[in-house]
């Protein structure tokens, strides 16, 4: 919302400085976004008097002028045709910045003659486009500041333009009068009385207006209008054009400019029809659907059923509260004008405006709420202004519908206000503030809400009005004691602790944490079991971000591809975050996913560089599970999803239904589809899956240390190539549950010597005696049991 200081002063009598006004605006919630103050760039320039002007000895068009200035007599060379003896000019001395030229003036020689500054044109000072000659002032003394002269003689030229942000609750502040009222309530001056007008019609309005019954509610509450005949439309007067231009509007014609003036002056959008182009009467009604209208912006709009429009006897001529039609718009030749002021339903206006994608000043205001009590007076004031600017004769006013009664009152609880704000604000001050804002308080502090404040809907809104006027900038912070006395307790839930632990463990394993978007493209989502309609966005920002991610892998693989495109081939990336298995609230689950791409590290002198493989990913998955306290005894099943290499992936689980992690090589087809150069392995820990210990206690179980020395025995078994090591280990472990402490695979060998389809697995079994040292016989007995168990479970034989 833009306005100028002088326009503000139409409504506010004030001696406050611009800075004070700007400070107050921001403080009371009308945040200043930009101020353009011409005085800022013109403050240094002073007036001078041209004492003499001689022709330059070496240039016909240049004059050598002797100019009286506040720094004494100065010689200035000037090429302007009007540079001559006896005129008062604006002097720019050496060292001053000329905004219109973007240079700083220096003492210089022009064709051999020294020049100590310049005399400025309006264009050079960015006052206008005028550049035919230098500024000649009809008055003013040598040494006077130019801005002071302008302020006294041509104030619009130094009128600061203020742009403020208006929050959606304040339609009243979309009119300059509303801003003035706020400033007056803050104590920055006096709100001037409202202008009033009363134009009695001299004839019956020939255009009648009706509102359809079904359009009264949620459509148009009241519509007032009148004909003004015999007007002479044309450019509006300079003062009005200047005002509109200053706030960024293009003057069009007197009739249109009047409506724009009311829009910004008092937040009262109006519309003017060229009455000669209207056939018969006007009817406010709902569109049937499918009708069209060419709008004032030269675009054709097609209506949906229910939109509120204004038709004459022939066709739709205007979109209620949003935009008029081109066919009945006013032009330079309009002589009979029909003026409209109506109260439109805010929600209907917003819906229609949104559907038709029209962002007009009228829509912006009508969807926020117009003061209904001002409707009748607005017609009179606008009529008066049209008569003043364009002449003509006004009919009586026709009215359809009724002005809605918006009167309501809420209790002001002055104690509650102080309790909520935490500031001492005297009850009398509170009442004075509300009164200044237009509220009327009765003896019991029931505050009647002014008709221009649709946002005030309860007592809480009164608190806000008092608080913002009292100044939140001035509010002093008050310590808030902890809810419990003493040392603060841990506040993270076990799951939150687990998430942090998983994250920091993975980073400690050498992975770089990424945060990728929660939405990805459908093709990528489909590779990971997603891309369903349930997880689809209705209005994605692009096709690259159309579906909620089913997994963290696609985002990480895309990140890997981007990094590879930048020349980084090896990397370890991870993310901890939600994936989405449905489109309902809560259909998300927490994952910790890492990927390893390329090699274990750069080429090195130690010869340790190798391609990453699934055992790297498995180790990291196990490390994360261990860090988050997952049970150590797990099953490993081959049931990983389709995005994994079918033979080189597995899930770590507590039974088939309790999957805690998945690891493996990424499926080559996925890598190709996502443009990642492999090898690529990865893991995902389903963070929420590992069970928490049943009894949470800091106490550890007692440490059982055996005094007797442990014994290790190695066995090598020849088994079928598809026998899994874990099967063999589990069989061996089960051979003697008391003596066998651990079983570890330390070698896998595949070779022709073993026979086709065979392999050898070597295990190391650690036996921990409990009561007595083991004899060779004891060990022999256990060994036999191990061999028998392994044979039973895998068909394996001890390797000869």
């Amino acid at each position: 919302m833009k306005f100028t200081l002088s326009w503000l002063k139409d409504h506010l009598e004030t001696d406050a400085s611009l800075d004070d006004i700007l400070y107050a605006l921001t403080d009371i919630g009308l945040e200043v976004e930009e101020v353009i103050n011409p005085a800022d760039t013109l403050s240094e320039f002073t007036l001078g008097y041209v004492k003499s002007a001689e022709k330059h000895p070496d240039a016909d068009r240049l004059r050598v002028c002797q100019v009286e200035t506040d720094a004494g007599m100065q010689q200035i060379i000037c090429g302007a045709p009007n540079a001559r003896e006896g005129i008062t000019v604006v002097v720019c001395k050496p060292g001053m910045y000329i905004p219109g030229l973007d240079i700083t003036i220096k003492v210089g020689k022009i064709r051999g003659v020294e020049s100590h500054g310049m005399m400025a044109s309006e264009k050079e000072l960015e006052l206008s486009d005028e550049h035919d000659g230098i500024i000649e002032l009809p008055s003013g003394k040598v040494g006077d500041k130019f801005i002071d002269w302008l302020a006294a003689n041509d104030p619009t030229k130094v009128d600061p333009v203020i742009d403020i942000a208006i929050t959606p609750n304040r339609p009243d502040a979309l009119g300059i009068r509303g801003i003035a009222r706020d400033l007056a309530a803050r104590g920055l001056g006096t709100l001037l009385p409202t202008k009033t007008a009363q134009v009695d019609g001299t004839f019956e309005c020939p255009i009648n207006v009706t509102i359809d019954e079904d359009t009264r509610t949620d459509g148009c509450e009241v519509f007032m209008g009148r004909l003004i005949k015999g007007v002479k439309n044309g450019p509006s007067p300079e003062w009005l054009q200047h005002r509109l231009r200053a706030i960024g509007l293009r003057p069009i014609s007197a009739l249109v400019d009047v409506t724009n003036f009311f829009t910004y002056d008092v937040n009262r959008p109006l519309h003017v029809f060229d009455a000669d182009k209207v056939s018969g009467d006007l009817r406010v009604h709902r569109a049937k659907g499918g009708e069209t209208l060419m709008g004032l912006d030269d675009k054709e709009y097609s209506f949906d059923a229910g939109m509120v429009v204004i038709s004459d006897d022939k066709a739709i001529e205007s979109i209620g509260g949003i935009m008029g039609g081109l066919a009945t718009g006013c032009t330079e030749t309009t002589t009979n004008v029909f003026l409209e002021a109506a109260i439109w339903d805010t929600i209907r206006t917003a819906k229609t405006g949104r559907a038709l994608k029209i962002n007009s000043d009228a829509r912006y205001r009508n969807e926020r709420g117009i003061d209904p009590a001002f409707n009748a007076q607005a017609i009179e004031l606008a009529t008066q202004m049209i008569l003043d600017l364009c002449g003509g004769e006004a009919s009586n006013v026709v009215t359809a519908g009724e002005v809605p009664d918006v009167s309501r009152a809420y209790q002001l609880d002055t104690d509650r206000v102080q309790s909520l704000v935490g500031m001492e604000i005297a009850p009398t001050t509170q009442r004075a503030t509300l009164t200044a804002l237009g509220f009327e308080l009765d003896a019991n502090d029931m505050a009647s809400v002014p008709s221009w404040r649709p946002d005030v809907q309860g007592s809480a809104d009164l608190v806000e009005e008092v608080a913002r006027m009292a100044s939140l900038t001035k509010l002093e912070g008050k310590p808030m004691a902890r809810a419990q006395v003493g040392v603060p307790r841990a506040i993270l839930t076990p799951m939150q602790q687990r998430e942090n632990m998983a994250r920091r463990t993975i980073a400690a394993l050498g992975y770089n944490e990424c945060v990728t978007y929660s939405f990805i493209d459908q093709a990528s989502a489909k590779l990971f079991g997603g891309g369903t309609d349930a997880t689809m966005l209705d209005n994605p920002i692009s096709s690259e971000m159309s579906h909620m991610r089913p997994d963290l892998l696609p985002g990480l693989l895309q990140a890997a591809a981007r990094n590879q495109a930048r020349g980084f081939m090896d990397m370890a990336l991870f993310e901890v975050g939600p994936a989405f298995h449905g489109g309902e609230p809560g259909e998300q689950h927490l994952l910790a996913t890492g990927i390893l791409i390329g090699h274990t590290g750069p080429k090195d002198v130690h010869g340790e560089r190798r391609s990453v493989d699934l055992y790297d990913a498995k180790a990291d998955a196990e490390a994360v599970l261990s860090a988050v306290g997952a049970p150590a005894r797990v099953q490993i099943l081959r049931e990983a999803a389709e995005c994994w290499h079918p033979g080189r992936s597995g899930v770590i689980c507590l039974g088939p239904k309790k999957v805690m992690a998945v690891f493996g090589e990424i499926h080559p087809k996925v890598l190709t589809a996502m443009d990642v150069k492999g090898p690529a392995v990865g893991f995902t820990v389903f963070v929420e899956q590992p069970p928490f210990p049943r009894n949470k206690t800091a106490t550890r179980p007692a440490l059982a240390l055996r005094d007797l020395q442990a014994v290790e025995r190695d066995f090598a078994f020849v088994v079928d190539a598809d026998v899994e090591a874990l099967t063999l280990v589990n069989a061996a472990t089960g051979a003697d549950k008391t003596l066998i402490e651990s079983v570890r695979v330390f070698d896998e060998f595949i070779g022709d010597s073993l026979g086709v389809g065979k392999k050898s697995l070597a295990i190391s079994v650690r036996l921990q005696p409990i009561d007595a040292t083991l004899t060779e016989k004891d060990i022999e007995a256990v060994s036999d049991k191990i061999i028998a168990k392994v044979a039973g479970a895998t068909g394996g034989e001890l390797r000869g």
Partner: protein
Amino acid sequence: MDALRQKYIDAIANVADESTLEDLRVAAVGKKGEVSLKMRELGKMTPEERQVAGPKLNALKDELNSALSAKKAALADAALDERLRSEWLDVTLPSRSRGQGTIHPVSQVTEEVSAIFADMGFTVAEGPQIENDWYNFDALNIPPHHPARQEFDTFYMNRAEGDDRPPHVLRTHTSPVQIREMEKTGAPIRVIAPGRVYRSDYDQTHTPMFHQIEGMAIGKDISMANLKWVLEEFFAAFFEIDGIKTRFRASHFPFTEPSAEVDIQCSWVDGQLRIGEGDDWMEVLGSGMMHPKVLQAGGVDPDKWQGFAFGMGIDRIAMLKYGIPDLRAFFDSDLRWLRHYGFSALDMPTLHGGLSK
């Protein structure tokens, strides 16, 4: 006997390797060595002679033994020195590489913020990111078709045909967690809620996903002055600048009344933003006293309880604190960026150890 001594002492001194030394030991003090043979002769001597020769021979044997072991040690040292000399390696060769992992600034700053608010008695809550429109809007006093709703640039989820419920949204702010937490625990309550939020906006300074942290405190007499103190304390702790100035400006949010936007003191020096100095202001959050309708929506009686709420951008305060220029880069996963702006795995922010190192 002196000649014998001199002979072996000299010989030991001149030995250059361990095997020669061993030969010498055998020749001198071995079972059949010269000294041993002399000792055997003691038996043939008279007791008087024996008394003189015996101790002398023992002394000679001891002396030779210690000379032998000293020489042996010296030879071993020399041999070790020789071996070590040959084991020279180029220590300037690169070490074995070990991947350096990093924590993303969003995670780090979330933990920093949590640490500060935990100390003030706030717990951490979370909520679903796909929300129904009641929690995201209506419960927060943003009725359908209210202009405020349009300002959020909401992402809507697809609705299956025949499902007439209003479409779910990607939460546009963390505020719905206010309602969910009030429903869960009632008043009094102090909670923060960090997490991802979504708005359909993508340009120089906006990304369609970003992170917010919500704060809420409800009690019998919690006021806006308390809110101001909490936020002042927070900014001083977070930016690690004592006395950092904040400015409360009246504003409007549908879910708070009164509402304030909060700026922190800053300056621009050579295009670089500096927090906590100068005369400029940087807007960092929105806040206010919870609207009675919001309390009601969460099942809390606004006649008995009152409280404040605030919301700020995690990415934004991370950018301000750590001088990260571009929001979009947060989500690009450029390795160079992750390594440069990331944090060490063990760099856990705590209040007693400091938030940033």
